[in-house]
């Protein structure tokens, strides 16, 4: 077998705090004018560099489905962006054989004023499909997206679910030799996610090479034949999915004890940062459990939020997910129709969950702050991890054995033999 992707000593570095958005010609002229002077003084101020990815070397064979895992900021997306040719590497080399299609985002280039039909063609062309190819697969795409009835409606009138389905459907019908996918399965409802996963399976079975980034370990385990683990821009493990995923879950998860403030200022995150979480604390507020949450018990999260200005937020959430990335609880303020008034500076808030219907184990906690217009102020996922412990107290007169339990409403009927 010959390698279709050969990567050697690949690296990308950025300047720390490189926010060139506000660079103006005036700044550049001032810098150019003062540069020789500063050089004379021997005091040229250098912003430090950080390597988002360094010394990455690996090969991918044809037909392999390679999963990339690691915490946020580990360098997964940087690697995919270099291989997709969206960013240039700082050093090293990568040779890729065959046609590449990369999906770094769902619905790139979609225009809200255009109809479903028009966007299928536009998006297909942007992702590298020929018009003839789109013509041929058009009906399939439409059927996959389940939006046949709205094909001539501008997509601005679509629900977000329909929009996502249509966007993914186009991408799912790409027929490249190599497919690069970044975390796009995190969108859409459960049923559609399963459908997308099935489609990716199909692509992979076809012998195409797939590079796949996800935080959903179940998806990675199901889909990939090989997994690479990245940490701080370095490739730290490469091999059989079960082994690498186990290593990731064991080493990368960091459980935080209850009743202690957890600093979050340095945690990697997304969002505008206009208002942000700086610390969090959690507790069951039950002395019998030393603050640990137990199955079916209460759990309260205390958060410290810093805001630049006075503002009202209508969307704040605490999310609990399994280590494999499946969301289990989403306590979202929007569901209550409540708002939170933030004053400039430091604010405190509390989210109290009355009963945590979770079996004992380790769970990731995600924190979200935004508004109902889809703006993200701050999003940490995961922010930290917590342990849910077994409840040793007797219930209904018996002490539950084994792995704890989550109660549910149920009834038992005795039926006669004939159905």
């Amino acid at each position, binding site marked *: 077998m*010959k390698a*279709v992707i050969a990567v050697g000593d690949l690296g990308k570095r950025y300047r720390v705090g490189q926010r060139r958005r506000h*660079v103006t010609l005036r700044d550049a002229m001032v810098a150019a004018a003062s540069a020789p002077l500063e050089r004379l003084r021997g005091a040229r101020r250098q912003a430090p560099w950080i390597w988002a990815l360094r010394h990455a070397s690996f090969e991918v064979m044809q037909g392999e489905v390679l999963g990339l895992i690691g915490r946020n900021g580990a360098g997964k997306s940087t690697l995919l962006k270099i291989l*997709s040719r969206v960013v240039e590497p700082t050093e090293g*080399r990568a*040779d890729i054989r065959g046609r590449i299609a990369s999906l770094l985002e769902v619905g790139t280039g979609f225009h809200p*004023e*255009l109809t479903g039909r028009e966007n299928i063609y536009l998006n297909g*062309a942007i992702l590298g499909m020929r018009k003839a190819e789109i013509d041929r697969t058009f009906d399939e795409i439409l059927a996959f997206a389940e939006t046949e009835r709205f094909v001539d409606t501008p997509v601005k009138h679509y629900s977000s679910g329909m929009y996502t389905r249509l966007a993914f459907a186009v991408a799912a019908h790409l027929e490249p030799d190599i497919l690069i996918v970044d975390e796009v399965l995190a969108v859409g409802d459960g049923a559609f996610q399963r459908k997308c996963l099935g489609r990716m399976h199909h692509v992979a079975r*076809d012998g195409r090479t797939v590079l796949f980034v996800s935080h959903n370990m179940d998806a990675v385990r199901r889909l990939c034949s090989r997994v690479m683990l990245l940490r701080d821009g370095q490739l730290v493990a490469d091999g059989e999915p079960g082994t690498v995923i186990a290593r990731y879950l064991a080493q990368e998860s960091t459980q935080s004890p209850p009743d202690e403030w957890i600093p979050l200022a340095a945690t990697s995150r997304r969002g505008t940062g206009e208002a942000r979480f700086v610390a969090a604390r959690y507790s069951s507020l039950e002395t019998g459990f030393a603050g640990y949450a137990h199955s079916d018990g209460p759990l309260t999260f205390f958060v410290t939020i810093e805001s630049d200005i006075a503002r009202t937020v209508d969307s704040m959430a605490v999310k609990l997910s399994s280590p494999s990335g499946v969301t289990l609880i989403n306590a979202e303020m929007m569901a209550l129709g409540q708002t939170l008034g933030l004053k400039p500076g430091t604010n405190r808030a509390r989210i109290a969950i009355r009963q945590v219907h979770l079996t004992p184990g380790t769970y990731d906690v995600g924190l979200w702050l935004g508004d109902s217009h889809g703006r993200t102020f701050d999003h940490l996922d995961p922010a930290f991890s917590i342990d849910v412990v077994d409840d040793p107290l007797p219930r209904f007169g018996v002490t539950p054995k084994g792995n704890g339990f989550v109660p549910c409403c149920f009834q038992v009927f005795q039926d006669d033999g004939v159905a």
Partner: protein
Amino acid sequence: MRPLVSPANIAALPVTRIRPPSGWTSLNHRELWNYRELLYFLVWRDIKVRYRQTALGATWAIVQPFLTMAVFSVFFGALVGVPSDGVPYPVFAYVALVPWMYFAAALTQASTSLVDHSRLVTKVYFPRVLVPAAAVAAGLVDLAIAFLVLAGMLLYYGIVPTAAVLTLPFLVILTSAAALGASLWLAALNARYRDVRHLMPFLIQLWLFLTPVAYPSSVVPDRWRPVYAMNPMAGIIEGFRWALVGSGERPGVPLAVSVAVILTVLVGGLFYFRRTERSFVDVL
């Protein structure tokens, strides 16, 4: 699904080589040719979207040059009495305003196009030059619509174009090339320095004064002519007048100068754009 290449044939697949950027690179016209369909779709999108949710729709393509022509006719034509080479002033002005407005709009759109499409540029690879090129090409539809009105005006004033009208396609291509050439420099600069957006209205206005739109180039003193001709739009606008209403003499020399200037700016712009396009994503 498209049949997959068997393992034995992997060697036959095209190889993409990814390397750190290093200085000047070739224009890679073969890759551009491979992406021609994307150019078509980008242009098509711009045209489709341009007048969606506007009350006047494509009428805007006529309203702007027509009203400007009316204002020019009143102030420059009637009140100031600017000479118009023996052609009725409204026709004289409109013939120049149509290509000028296409040029100005194309230049403005294309110069900020990379930043306007930053979502696209940071998520998908394609030759970045397609973005300003699509912006320039999309303006051609407005140009065509505005020309229809011109045909009506010629009919009204009883002006019959000569065989020179056949040079029209060449002049239109030249205008597009001028807009693309200048916008390649400006778009690349705008990716890094957002000042370009603020510079554009000012630049366009100055450029209009330096171009024989409201006045004939015959009013420019002879000794300034060589400098004046360095503005590629000067030769082009005189070319449009000569081709459509037969005013002035054949602008052979000014046009030749225009072609030379445009080619220099365009080729230089293509190379400069290629050199800087690799770092666009880091600064967008």
